[in-house]
């Protein structure tokens, strides 16, 4: 019997995914922490590859005017972002120029444009975001959608803690 594949191969995580995850959000019955947990654990276990922009590191923070993150929590977050299963896309010239074009062509705000341009730069097949900010964007090369369990619901099917999953290697994916 063929092994089930992970839902995603190379998703891009908007900062909102990390924010909802840390914030333990539950919106309209959707347990965002559980879903993000599942995606991140799948990445940690090598089941999929996740990318995000270095902008995410700056965006995952307390709002101005609200109580600050205490030093330990902030340090802990920064250290977490050193994890080897999170791949960062730098905001360099090419990404910035693409973001500029996306803002103009797709009606995006600049930071949204940076995230989408970063996802395109990393050749991600999907940008995962917990908001409808990208509703106007319509690109043939990438899907934009709310995160879903990557593998967790498969684990509930009675195959044990987590079934062995197949993901395509970069070489396999590139050859498609």
């Amino acid at each position: 019997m063929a092994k089930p594949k992970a839902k995603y191969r190379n998703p891009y995580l908007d900062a909102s995914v990390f924010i909802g995850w840390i914030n333990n959000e539950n919106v309209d019955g959707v347990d965002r922490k559980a879903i993000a947990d599942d995606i991140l654990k799948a990445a940690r276990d090598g089941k999929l590859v996740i990318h995000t922009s270095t902008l995410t590191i700056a965006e995952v923070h307390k709002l101005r005017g609200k109580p600050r993150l205490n030093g330990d929590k902030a340090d802990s977050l920064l250290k977490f972002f050193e994890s080897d299963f999170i791949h960062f896309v730098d905001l360099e010239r090419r990404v910035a120029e693409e973001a500029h074009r996306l803002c103009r062509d797709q009606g995006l705000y600049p930071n949204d444009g940076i995230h989408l341009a970063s996802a395109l730069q990393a050749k991600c097949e999907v940008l995962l975001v917990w908001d409808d900010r990208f509703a106007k964007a319509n690109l043939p090369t990438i899907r934009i959608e709310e995160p879903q369990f990557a593998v967790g619901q498969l684990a509930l099917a009675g195959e044990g803690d987590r079934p062995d999953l197949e993901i395509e290697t970069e070489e396999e994916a590139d050859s498609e």
Partner: protein
Amino acid sequence: MSTVRLKLRGEPGAITLSALGDSLRHMLKIIGDLDYALSRKPGGAEEWVVTELSIGSVSVAVKRRTDDGRLGTRVSEQWVSGLRRIEREGVTPPYLSHDGMRQTRALLKIIGNKGVSGIEVASDADSEELSAKASANVDQLLPEAYTSIGSIEGRLEDISIHGKAKYVVYHDRTRRAINCTFPLSQLATVKDALGERVNVYGIIHWNPKGEQLRVEEGDLRILGPQSELPTIEEIGGSDPDLLGGLSTAEYLREVRGGEA
């Protein structure tokens, strides 16, 4: 044991001795480059021995002198898949250093010269016919097109103080080899980072295809070993008041703009 093969196509009597000599020299350098990157063996690659040699279209097969079976297979797979990516996709393959890429370019430049009409590279299980297209593609991968200030992340696996001091970082995601130069005053820091996952911040030189080629005078930082970093379980849900009562959507409107 796995073999690595190279065939020079050409009419009998047309392929010159210098084409054969040059091809073998470049082949040896490329295999050595892959062997070094994959074996992580200090002091250079294992010796490779000739197992087959035939004439007409000149064909040579080599294998590792000593091998547990796995490393030779990986080198031979990369030998074919790497050159295939250059031929078909025009991208830099994993593990080949800048010098390895230069050797690859030199090998490919033999196509159409000295009686060689084509080159085939092969392993026991796979093969790829290389054409002048691969040669044109590799020309796009070696030159520097622009620079930016930024960082790369990957494993530091090779230090050299011959000529300009440099180390090689194998990129986390692509496994491409990126040269990073450094002042000798930082040698102790660099040595401490050997084998570690690092972030190198500096002037990044890119090729025309948007691939990082090298980092100039990079500032090196060792990234925490995964076992010592906060875990997913520790960070997830750790701050239910992160947004001070706002939803994620409201927070994004605050920091990025937009309407409710």
